[in-house]
């Protein structure tokens, strides 16, 4: 039955419409959860507010459980889900760069758009920075192409890598999430509350 687009049950345009509606929902939830505040966002790096960790990890395990149960009921074919291909070196480098940018700028790309849309000046500059960065990358792409495409791993899943089933992997992820939330709350208690 699913993914809807892969089975031609909906057209590409309808798919975009769904994406648009889900995007609005996502933005709305981000904003109402306070994710348009850079102080709240970077709190996860300083340990005074781990809500970022909680929200994204919860979203992750919710989506994971949803997909696995949908697959179990035969509602979706997991083999047809697009998984971003992994280019190991650029993933690692990009991850470090993104993390650094997150701490310095106070936003991740999604939340920066969210904050820019409610008129936060720092976020507007952040988005401008993304735009400039993307263009620089485009211009120097021929120079970095070798590194960008190095160590291609296909679309590996952690469960394949470890040789365990998706279900057991899911349980491990859930245990990790609960443990991380508990750890996060301990850190939060130790830090002085920050007003923002």
């Amino acid at each position, binding site marked *: 039955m699913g993914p809807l687009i892969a089975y031609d049950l909906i057209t590409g345009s309808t798919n975009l419409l769904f994406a648009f509606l889900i995007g609005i929902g996502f933005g709305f939830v981000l904003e109402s959860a306070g994710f348009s505040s850079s102080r709240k966002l970077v709190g996860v790096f300083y340990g005074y507010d781990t809500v970022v960790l909680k929200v994204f990890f919860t979203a992750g395990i919710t989506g994971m459980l949803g997909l696995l149960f949908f697959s*179990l009921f035969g509602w979706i*074919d997991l083999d047809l889900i697009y998984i971003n291909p992994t280019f190991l070196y650029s993933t690692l480098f990009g991850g470090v760069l993104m993390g650094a940018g997150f701490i310095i700028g106070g936003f991740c790309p999604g939340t920066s758009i969210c904050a820019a849309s409610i008129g936060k000046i720092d976020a507007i500059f952040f988005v401008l920075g993304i735009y400039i960065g993307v263009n620089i990358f485009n211009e120097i792409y021929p120079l970095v192409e070798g590194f960008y495409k190095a160590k291609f791993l296909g679309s590996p899943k952690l469960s394949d890598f470890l040789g365990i*089933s998706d*279900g057991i992997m*899911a*349980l491990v992820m859930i245990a990790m999430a609960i443990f991380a939330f508990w750890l996060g709350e301990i850190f939060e208690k130790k830090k002085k509350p920050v007003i923002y």
Partner: protein
Amino acid sequence: MKPRILLAIFVIPLGLIIAAVPENKTHAFKLSAEQLLEETNAGIQYYSPEEIADLIIKKDPSIQLIDVRNVDEYSKFSLPGAINIPLTTILEEDWEGYLNQDVKINVFYSNGTLNSDKAWMITRQLGYENNYVLMGGLNYWVETIMNPESPSSTSSDEEFAKYDFRKGAGMALGGGAVISNEKKAGTAPIIPALKSKSKKKRVQGGC
């Protein structure tokens, strides 16, 4: 109650369930164009005439030959044990029991491979397993099994062994391999059985 505890109460049992149940590996739907192209190019659907001849001679019960030519052609001659599912009727509900099963190995054949390949692609696209194609079809069958060409004297031992096998198989199946149904006036006629809606009857007719 803390949100963390509340969350744990919900997701941990779900995680336990999903870890305990086997993964759903059924993909009852269609292949992508790329996958189909890959499979077609790899030629995984082919059974060579030798393999089929060997299975027929051994009276292997796991094999089911399926003639995808039309009824007239089928009634003129067919391979031993073959049933007739004309390509034009392949999507009819009656045939699903034959085509979508995991007990027998279905081998489609037609005069060449074009129609049997079509049948294979359709069933493959429907997600059915265990369907194959007789390589080269009946033409190649006659060429290799019924009238094998003796290899030149300089050929390798392998070629001779192949020839000996083909000759032996041709003799074992001789005449019987290309059954004239007209001769079998006394036996169950195939055409009426085809029209029947009863699957059971059709099997009897075919065998």
